[in-house]
């Protein structure tokens, strides 16, 4: 989901130390987490994320999706940054292919969380065994920033880690979808979304998602280059394509930095 107040400072995204299976939220957690607190923490994360979902529901409808399509994104795609990106590209007239690609690229990090969670969620924590079957389908759908971060908070305790993952997954899934419905229905009653400044809410949402990731010079450099390049390309390319250039710059930057470290 990549959303909400738990995204504390301290994530070392572009840095050497960063664990890609470790979302921003895990960093702010207490070192010795008490498993008794799992239900209430899961609920409070869900409430925070649900509030954010209200703004997603509203901007999605403002972007031109109907209430059902908006709800489908929250229930099926269920990863906030990608959902915001999808409707953002649609709102900018960027075309559906660019919207799908941008959303997918932003969701790639969930695949890396999955690499890690596969072992954490193994049956009774048996090393070498991995989660399978229906449980794996559910786990895949619930593998997002918040659930992964909560699971990692309790990691040394395998049982608590699994409970934290599922509790947070359910809490966020239910409240994210409820919030989306409230926002979408609310915005559907408006004739002109710009009256409420919803067009400004979209970039502010991207900014809030970007903010905790700007932790070192390479992250800032990448952000500035991607942002400026997208604006320079915008007059010459179809809407939506300049955003994808940001992904290209990121991969080039990663190649360059990895190469530099190896030598």
């Amino acid at each position: 989901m990549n959303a909400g107040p738990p995204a504390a400072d301290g994530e070392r995204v572009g840095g050497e130390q960063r664990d890609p299976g470790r979302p921003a939220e895990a960093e702010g957690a207490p070192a010795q987490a008490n498993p008794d607190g799992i239900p209430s923490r899961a609920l409070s994360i869900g409430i925070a994320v649900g509030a954010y979902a209200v703004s997603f529901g509203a901007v999605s409808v403002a972007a031109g999706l109907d209430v059902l399509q908006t709800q489908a994104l929250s229930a099926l795609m269920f990863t906030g940054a990608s959902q915001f990106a999808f409707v953002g590209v649609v709102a900018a007239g960027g075309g559906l292919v660019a919207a799908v690609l941008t959303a997918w690229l932003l969701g790639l990090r969930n695949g890396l969380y999955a690499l890690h969670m596969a072992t954490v969620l193994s049956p009774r924590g048996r090393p070498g065994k991995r989660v399978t079957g229906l449980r794996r389908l559910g786990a895949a759908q619930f593998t997002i920033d918040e659930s992964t971060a909560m699971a990692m908070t309790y990691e040394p305790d395998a049982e608590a880690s699994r409970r934290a993952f599922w509790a947070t997954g359910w809490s966020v899934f239910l409240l994210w979808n409820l919030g989306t419905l409230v926002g979408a229905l609310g915005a559907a009653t408006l004739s002109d979304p710009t009256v409420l400044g919803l067009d400004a809410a979209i970039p502010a949402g991207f900014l809030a998602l970007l903010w905790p990731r700007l932790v070192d010079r390479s992250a800032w450099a990448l952000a500035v280059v991607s942002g400026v390049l997208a604006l320079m390309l915008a007059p010459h390319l179809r809407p939506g394509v300049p955003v994808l250039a940001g992904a290209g710059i990121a991969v080039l930057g990663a190649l360059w930095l990895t190469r530099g470290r190896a030598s």
Partner: protein
Amino acid sequence: MWPAVLAASFLAFVTKWIGYLLPEELLERPLIRRAAGMLPIGLLSALLSIQTFWSPDGFTIDARAAGVAVAVVALLLRAPFLVVVLSAAATAAVLRALGWA
């Protein structure tokens, strides 16, 4: 719109599902670690600049930019996510209501 909604949702799910099938050792590759951290930065920053400054008429500084500027202040004050988004929307709405943007 529906095919795009469903295709994007399918890709998001399959990406996670494949993660459950691949070996965790992939996380140890430096390039994958780097790219995973940097991809969201490049994409979010490009989305931010386009959504803030681009309009069908070209480069524009309007109520959206004012809203994002207020959002920066809110983030510096460590405001929660919803407050950041609402402050930006409210700023743009008020500027337009006053006829200043």
